[in-house]
C-alpha cells in the first residue's frame, strides 16, 4: 500500500523546527515560511519544546553528529520521534536518522530502521541532478539534487520506499511519522515534499500520529 502524498494539511497553528547547528537550514526555513507555518531554529534541546515536527537539513554529517552530542540533542530528538512527531532528514539528515551506516563516524541517532552508505556516488564531481518518480506524489516527477549524497542500503520491514534510482537503490523512504531523502527538495522550487512533511506534522497535532 502506497501512502498518498497529498500535501493538503492545514498549516495554521503548526510550528515546526529546523535543526540549525550546521547546514542548509535557512533553505528549509524559507520553504516552510512560504507554506505559511511558524518555524523555529533548533540549536539547543529547549528549542524542541512543543514543536509539531522537525527537519534535519543537509550539511556535513560528522559536524552535525559532534554538535548534537556536545549540546545533548540526541536523546530529545529520539524522544520526539518516538512520540510520533514528524521528523524528516535530507542528505546528512538522513544519515543521522539511520540505524546504522557503513563507517564508524558519524554516530547516527538510530531513529529510522534503515542502513545508509555515506558519499555513495563518489566525490563532489560525481554529484548530480535528475528527474525522479516518487510513489504517491501527484503530478510530474520530482527534480532531485544529489550532493555527495548517501543511499539507503538496508530497509526495515516497516519502511516504505518512496523512490529509488534506476539501479533500485532507495533514495526516499517513510516509516510512520518519519521520512528521509538522499536528495535536497529544499534546493528546488517544488514544495511537494515539504507540504507532505507538514501533513505528517498536522496528523500528529490532531492526536493520531501513528499512521
Amino acid at each position, binding site marked *: 500500500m502506497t501512502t498518498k502524498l497529498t500535501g493538503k494539511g492545514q498549516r495554521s497553528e503548526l510550528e515546526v523546527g529546523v535543526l540549525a547547528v550546521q547546514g542548509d537550514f535557512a533553505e528549509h526555513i524559507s520553504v516552510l515560511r512560504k507554506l505559511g507555518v511558524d518555524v523555529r531554529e533548533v540549536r539547543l534541546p529547549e528549542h524542541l519544546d512543543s514543536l509539531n515536527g522537525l527537519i534535519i537539513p543537509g550539511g*556535513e554529517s560528522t559536524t552535525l553528529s559532534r554538535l548534537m552530542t556536545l549540546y545533548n540533542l540526541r536523546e530529545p530528538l529520539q524522544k520526539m520521534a518516538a512520540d510520533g512527531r514528524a521528523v524528516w532528514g535530507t542528505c*546528512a539528515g538522513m544519515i543521522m536518522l539511520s540505524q546504522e551506516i557503513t563507517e564508524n563516524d558519524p554516530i547516527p541517532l538510530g531513529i529510522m530502521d534503515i542502513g545508509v552508505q*555515506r558519499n555513495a556516488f563518489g566525490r563532489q*564531481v560525481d*554529484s548530480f541532478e*535528475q528527474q525522479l518518480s516518487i510513489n504517491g506524489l501527484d503530478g510530474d516527477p520530482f527534480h532531485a*539534487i544529489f550532493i*555527495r549524497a548517501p543511499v539507503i542500503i538496508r530497509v526495515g520491514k516497516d519502511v516504505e520506499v518512496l523512490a529509488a534510482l534506476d539501479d533500485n537503490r532507495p533514495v526516499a523512504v517513510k516509516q510512520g511519522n518519519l521520512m528521509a531523502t538522499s536528495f*535536497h527538495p529544499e534546493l528546488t522550487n517544488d514544495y511537494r515534499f515539504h507540504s507532505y512533511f507538514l501533513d505528517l506534522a498536522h496528523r500528529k497535532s490532531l492526536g493520531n500520529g501513528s499512521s
Partner: protein
Amino acid sequence: MVEVLTGTFTVKAGHAQMLKGGVIMDVVNAEQAKIAAEAGAVAVMALERVPADIRADGGVARMTDPQIICDIMDAVSIPVMAKVRIGHFVEAQILESIGIDYIDESEVLTPADETHHVWKHDFKVPFVCGCRNLGEALRRISEGAAMIRTKGEAGTGDVVEAVRHMRTVQDAIRKLQNMPEDELVVEARDMQVSLELLTKTKELGRMPVVNFAAGGVATPADAALMMQLGADGVFVGSGIFKSGDPASRAHAIVQSVTHYQDSAILAEVSKNLGEPMVGISAKSIPDEDLLATRSQ
C-alpha cells in the same frame, strides 16, 4: 533511462549551501586533517604551507603537491578543497583530475595571470573565489564561481580586513535594495557586472551564492563576529594550526559558528584555549606585500 546531469551550477553551488554554518580549516598534512575533522570542520583546505608561512617565506607560492592533497583526501571523509593560482587553469585541471571537492582560486598564492581569472564554467568541480566588494564577487560569479569568500588579509591573524570586506559587500547590497530600477544600468556599468546578475542580487537581497568569511580569523569571537556581520560560514587558515592548542581552538571555533548569537556559549568556548597565533597587524604590512589587492 533518466538523464543524469553532473557538474551543473546547481550541484556546484548546492555543495557550498551544505557547508553553511560551518568552519573550513587549512591543513598541511593528514594528521592535521584528522584533527580538523574530529573537531567538527565541514571541510579542510589542503595546503603545503599555511598563509602565515607563505607570507614569512616569500618567493612564488604555487599549487600544493598533489601527493600531499591525495594523502589528505584519503585521511578524512569530509570534503577536501585546495588552492590554485589566480588564472592558472592547468593547476585547476590537475586538481579536478585527482577528484578534489572544491577549488579555491586564491590570492594567497602568487597570481599566474594578472588579467584573467580561470573560466570556471568549464569545470565540473566547483570554485570558491575571494572578494573585497560586491563588484569583485559578482565578476567571479559570472566567471563561474559557485561560492564566494571575503579576502581579508590571510596569514595575519588580524580580522580587520575581513570585517572591512564583509561590511563593504553588505553595504552594497543594502544600497542596491533601495536603488530604483532606472539606476541599475549605471550601477552595473560602474561595477563591471551584468545587469542580470545585479538585478538578481537586488531581488534576493543577498549574494546569489554562499558567502563565507576568510582572512585573519583567529578566535571564536572573530568567527562569531563575521557570522553576525552576515557571513554564511568561516574559513580559518593559519589561526588554528599556528596557535598553541590547535585541537581545542578548532573545536571552539566550530561551536562559535553554530552558536554565534549566544554570548554565554561564546564565553564558555573562549576559555582556556592557550596562545592564539601571534599575528601581525594588517596595517603594518607594506602595500606591495598585501595579498588582498592581487586581483580585481
